[in-house]
């Protein structure tokens, strides 16, 4: 925290509240002070998921801030956005003044400093003056300073600076994981929310290299907290919040080098206080009996595994190999430790998927149930969740097409009917929603018009199945002249210029191309933490994307900027 800047929160109001506010002329206001959002200097959004973008527009509109960046004056807040979505920001380029790519802990202070100095100097240069200063902050991308050109076939020719003084390519910010940046006094809501528990980020980044996964690319290099630091932060979080559960979060917590020490140590220490330790989605191949029994101590949160694909062949192609025997051993261990319910995540429509792979999902689930039955004791119940694959920017699969909606629907229907049995709860994600997600996930600046059209037609909270209006989205695409198939269903050659090529996620394009080729050949790539460097570029090519950031106590290594 800092004494010279004030930060408050605001959430998108639910449609009934939005209607009430519009009717009464109540502008969007900050939760803490109830001051109108438009009186703040900076308004920042975290882009966690493409299907929240209509809410972003809705919030700007409710706040009384002009939607179009170029229509704003000095009296309006500077609108910025960060989070994973900022790595493909182009669909929001018309509406967001500046993006922050990468870690925010250090950058937020740079941004505050620039805005403060601009204000104190009397706002020289107006908004453009502020944005020019901000463009000098590492990790900041000001889309208004870049022009876009297209080829005659509609593909991108390029995104280039249209003025001097801004970088041709903006590199993502990489911060150290420092204990002083972890929230000391996390806010505890008075009403029920999702993720209702204390959390400690035990490490950031991942080098497993699952080829569909954007987070695994954009959060490299791996930076681990020392065990003592993680435990201390967990204790502080529990003391400061009063939550009865603390979760050790990361992209793959079972891969944390100190996981047994930290999870086990905390579980033992906190059990007398009735506080439990939980781990988010675990990799089943790293799951050990020891880990399971350590967490057994206090209470059972659900256990989730993500096999993703039904056959080892396809799992190797997506680089998330998992021996079936190892997986079943993990299930047995979980059952022995007392878990009675498991959640399994799968995808349909992965590149190269065949009917055999779909059958593999069914037989894997059946084997799990058979395994559990054979051991007697309490019955195991399963939740199986299947979602359509959405190719993401900055991944080896960024050139792959998504399957058409009807075909995705057929595959989901097939799985649903073959998994219809007692003990299995099946949920399939709407492929129509996945199509819209796929469009924006790899979209370009022209989609701004479609997004605004969707908002004006009334699209909100698209991620909620009872709010998603597919027909309105189709109308929005139609009106704005955008063809969803162009963005979602087209296989792109490696030679095509992509709408995020001017943004550097820290990983080389050649690395992604190589990984893509390996996927098509069914070859796996090992985790560089255990083996050779794959030259992804995340740690400056020195081969330490995984190894360098494991700090010994007392050391303080800083990742080298590439």
């Amino acid at each position, binding site marked *: 925290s800092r004494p010279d800047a004030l930060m408050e929160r605001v959430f998108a109001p639910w449609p009934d509240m939005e209607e009430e506010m519009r009717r009464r002329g109540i502008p969007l206001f900050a939760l803490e002070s109830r001051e109108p959002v438009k009186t703040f200097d900076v308004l920042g959004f975290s882009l966690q998921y493409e299907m929240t973008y209509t809410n972003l527009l809705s919030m700007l509109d409710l706040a009384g801030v002009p939607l179009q960046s170029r229509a704003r004056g000095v009296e309006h807040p500077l609108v910025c956005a960060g989070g994973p979505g900022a790595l493909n920001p182009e669909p929001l380029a018309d509406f967001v003044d500046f993006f922050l790519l990468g870690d925010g802990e250090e950058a937020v202070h740079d941004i505050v400093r620039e805005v403060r100095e601009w204000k104190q100097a009397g706002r020289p240069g107006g908004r453009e003056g502020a944005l020019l200063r901000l463009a000098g902050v590492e990790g900041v991308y000001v889309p208004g300073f870049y022009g876009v050109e297209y080829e005659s076939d509609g593909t991108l020719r390029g995104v280039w600076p249209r003025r001097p003084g801004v970088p041709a390519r903006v590199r993502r910010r990489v911060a150290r994981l420092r204990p002083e940046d972890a929230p000391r006094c996390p806010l505890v809501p*008075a009403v029920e929310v999702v993720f209702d528990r204390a959390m400690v980020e035990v490490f950031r980044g991942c080098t497993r290299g699952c080829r569909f996964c954007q987070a695994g690319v954009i959060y490299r290099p791996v930076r681990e907290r020392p065990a003592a630091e993680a435990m201390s932060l967990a204790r502080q979080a529990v003391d400061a919040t009063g*939550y009865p559960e603390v979760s050790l979060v990361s992209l793959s917590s079972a891969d944390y080098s100190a996981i047994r020490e930290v999870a086990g140590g905390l579980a033992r220490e906190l059990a007398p206080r009735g506080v439990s330790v939980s781990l988010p989605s675990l990799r089943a191949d790293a799951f050990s009996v020891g880990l399971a029994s350590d967490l057994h101590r206090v209470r059972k949160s659900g256990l989730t595994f993500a096999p993703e694909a039904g056959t080892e062949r396809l799992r190797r192609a997506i680089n998330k190999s998992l021996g079936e025997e190892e997986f079943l051993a993990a299930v047995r261990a979980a059952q022995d430790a007392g878990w009675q319910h498991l959640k399994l995540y799968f995808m349909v429509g992965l590149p190269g998927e065949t009917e055999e792979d779909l059958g593999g999902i069914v037989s894997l689930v059946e084997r799990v149930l058979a395994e559990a039955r054979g051991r007697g004791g309490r019955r195991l119940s399963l939740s199986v969740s299947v979602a359509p694959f959405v190719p993401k920017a900055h991944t080896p699969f960024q050139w792959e097409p998504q399957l058409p909606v009807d075909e995705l629907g057929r595959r989901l229907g097939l799985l649903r009917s073959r998994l219809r049995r007692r003990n299995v709860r099946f949920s399939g994600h709407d492929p129509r929603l996945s199509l819209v997600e796929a469009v924006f996930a790899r979209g370009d600046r022209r989609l701004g018009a479609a997004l605004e059209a969707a908002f004006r037609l009334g699209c909100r909270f698209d991620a909620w199945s009872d709010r998603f209006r597919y027909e309105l989205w189709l109308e929005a695409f139609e009106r704005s002249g955008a063809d969803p198939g162009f963005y979602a269903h087209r296989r792109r050659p490696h030679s095509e210029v992509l709408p995020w090529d001017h943004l550097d996620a820290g990983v080389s394009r050649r690395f992604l191309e190589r990984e893509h080729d390996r996927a098509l050949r069914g070859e796996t790539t090992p985790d560089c933490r255990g083996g050779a460097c794959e030259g992804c570029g995340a740690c400056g090519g020195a081969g330490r994307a995984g190894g360098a950031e494991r700090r010994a106590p007392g050391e303080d290594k800083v990742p080298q900027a590439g």
Partner: protein
Amino acid sequence: MPRVRIRFRKQGDARFISHLDLVRVMERAARRAGLPLRLSQGYNPRPKMAFASALALGTASDAEYLDLELVRPVPLEDVLGRLREQLPSGLRPSAAAWVPEQAPALMALVNAAEYEVEVEFSGPCPGRAELEQRLRDFVTRGGALDGELLALAEGRARLRLVLPASGGDRARPRRVAESLLSALGCGGRTAGVRRRELLRIEGGRRLVPWELVQGGRARG
């Protein structure tokens, strides 16, 4: 095991915390306060807490009660002070007292509640004397355990109503006010409800949870 009974107000924004959420808020506040809470047994240990009677969402209250079990005694002023520091504004602990071991649970104890209800008439409404008579009849017929007209001015009436703690619509102040309005033959709406006290009505006597507690008491 020492059991402490805490009396608290629920008002302002805290009116919109549901009963279930209130349980969570209290649990977390008690944990943050570092009170030596007694935990339940089994796989899901929770602090042992008991409430008296769920308050409807949106209703403010001057007197809610919570019994907390501790593993060892803590000075009552500390209990109050530490909880006060941790609770959101709108939930203000006002008093604490020790409860003897054999005392009945809060929920078993409380069988009635007193409310203050503001009613806004939408058309012509009866004069004071008639209102009071109709209210007495309403009570006699069993529409409420007790009732009193506190104020009447400019088409608004403020009533004191004592209702049973449970029993469907008979326990719900808004519903009771609606049925009173129709008994009066008047149109109108409930403009505000506030719970004033929780009671045990037994053999003509009326007791508040405090009076059922012996020993020291702390006020805040």
